[in-house]
């Protein structure tokens, strides 16, 4: 286990280095003088000089990168150019929103996608299967922001059941928090539910045609036990892969979902940063998002190790 973990971690390192360099190089790629681009034409010479020194633009590129990386690793993401607030603090404030949104949308995706996939596989080639497949296909084609807008129109504006915006921390008021996060989670989780449904259906069809399932049925096991105990348990591994691979898409989708529902998460921090040309906050938020994805990918690989005895052997 330890050797596997170390080897996967070593494989991740080059990607992590490239990712950090790509994020760092954003300021190098700014057209013209980065200090003027960031601060604007109206900025004074003294302000530009201070920013150049703060960003280390007067040094060589490898030196700038290493200094920047050192600061990032020590948790110093710099200060926001628009509010002067430490970016690390902004990230700390906004991460819980994005994390909760992602977790709830995965829960929604699993709760809807797995049962729908199992039913579609068991009722193969019936109207239930066709309906589930068509719903999944449509779910994959609906952009997050349109799904969010439609949900707000129905459940917030017309029915008045759920709020359309605002965030209450879970530990302040759990009920208000879940009410506020339900629509965003459904918005972000709908595409994942569709993917999980399709993957579960495919895996279940494969597993249900295996010899040991026939054996279980021949031994008189009841159908629900055959499907859930023997079938689903063995069909879940590819589903976990799909969930792991979709974390990146989810965090990308969180950008628009947070905008639709006015949630102050990491995604919205990037968008606000772009409008305010606040590069430290854009870099900080992107770095945290991409490194989270790398860590989740690592954890997904480790979950195979735990769940699939063939790998751990």
């Amino acid at each position, binding site marked *: 286990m330890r050797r596997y973990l170390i080897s996967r971690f070593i494989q991740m390192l*080059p*990607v992590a*280095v*490239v*990712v950090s*360099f*790509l*994020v760092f190089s*954003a300021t190098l*790629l*700014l*057209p013209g003088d980065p200090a003027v681009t960031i601060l604007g034409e109206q900025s004074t010479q003294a302000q530009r000089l201070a920013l150049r020194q703060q960003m280390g633009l007067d040094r060589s590129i490898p030196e700038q990168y290493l200094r920047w990386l050192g600061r990032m690793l020590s948790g110093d993401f710099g200060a926001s150019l628009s509010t002067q607030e430490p970016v690390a603090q902004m990230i700390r404030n906004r991460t819980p929103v994005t994390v909760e949104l992602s977790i709830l949308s995965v829960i929604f995706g699993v709760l809807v996608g797995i049962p729908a996939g199992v039913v579609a596989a068991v009722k193969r080639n019936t109207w239930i299967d066709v309906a589930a497949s068509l719903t999944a*296909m*449509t779910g*994959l*084609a*609906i*952009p*997050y*922001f*349109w799904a969010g*807008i*439609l949900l*707000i*129109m129905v459940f*917030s*504006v017309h029915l008045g059941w759920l709020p359309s915006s605002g965030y209450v921390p879970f530990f302040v008021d759990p009920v208000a928090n879940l009410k506020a996060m339900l629509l965003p989670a459904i918005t972000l989780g709908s595409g994942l539910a569709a993917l999980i449904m399709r993957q579960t259906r495919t895996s279940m069809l494969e597993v249900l045609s295996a010899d040991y399932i026939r054996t279980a049925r021949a031994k008189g096991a009841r159908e629900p036990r055959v499907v859930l105990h023997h079938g689903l348990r063995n069909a879940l591994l590819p589903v976990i892969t799909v969930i792991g691979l979709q974390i*990146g*898409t989810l*965090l*990308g*989708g969180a*950008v*628009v979902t947070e*905008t*639709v529902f006015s949630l102050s998460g990491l*995604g919205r921090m*990037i*968008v606000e*940063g*772009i*409008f305010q040309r606040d*590069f430290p906050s*854009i870099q900080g938020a*992107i770095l945290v*998002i*991409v490194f989270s*994805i*790398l860590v989740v990918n690592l954890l997904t690989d480790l979950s195979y190790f735990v769940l699939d005895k063939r790998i751990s052997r």
Partner: protein
Amino acid sequence: MSSVIARGPGDADASPSQSISVYGQAFRKLLRHKLGRSGLAVLVFMSLVAIAAPLLAPYDPTTVFYEDFLAAPSWRHWLGTDDVGRDVLSRIIYGAQVSFQVITVSVVGSVIVGSAVGMISGYVGGRLDHVLMRIVDGMLAFPMLVLALGVIAILGPGLTNAMIAITIVNIPGFARLVRGQVLSARNLDFVVAARALGASDVRIMVHHIWPKVAGNVIVYASLRGSAALITEASLAFLGLGVQPPTPSWGGMLTTSMQYWNAWWMSVFPGAAICIMVLALNFLGDGLRDALDARLSE
């Protein structure tokens, strides 16, 4: 993607006329594929509507009807009007032009650059391959929209920059795909024979290897079209893509969020995006099945 095996003109025993017939057969198979055929039909219809927008749109997309602010669908305005009294149907029709422009430019751009990177990386190999593929891996670690936002942060908002951003985020996928195909093709007999006959590296890559990988690239490109459309619509929705007053489906949805009771402002542009994404996905599925030699056999 690796399951797709296209038999193109690069095959040792394939003449140009045979390769044309291979693609001709694939097209006929696509027309027999129900979903692929319907996707193609919808896309052809939408592209004709986009091209003929000045003839088909009932009004100019920027014309303001002062007496018709937020008017519901009616005979005068079939899909209603927006907050400043512009005809929603006309804006959707003109918005299709933007969508097709972005999809075409960004997918073609990423096919050209990504294929070139993948081709050189796979063919040359060694340290260059290692460096290029680590960069590609790094770019693939970013969610598509987040990477696009990073590019927009550097270049600034706007249609051209959105197209550049969408092109850049699609390059790594094509590079990875083509590199993998080149690695398996570069030691095939017809490539070795061409090299033995003194063909230059560029000639081998362009005339012998590229036709071998083109089928897979076409399929992947059709599947990336829908992702490009969603990214463009997302950027426009966030206010970072097409800028007003140019109509774009994503931008129309942003405005709709200020007028929740005017349901037509959000339902119709969103449906347009959804229909085009579905059509692109269906076409991609159809092309994959049509060009997959193993499936066809």
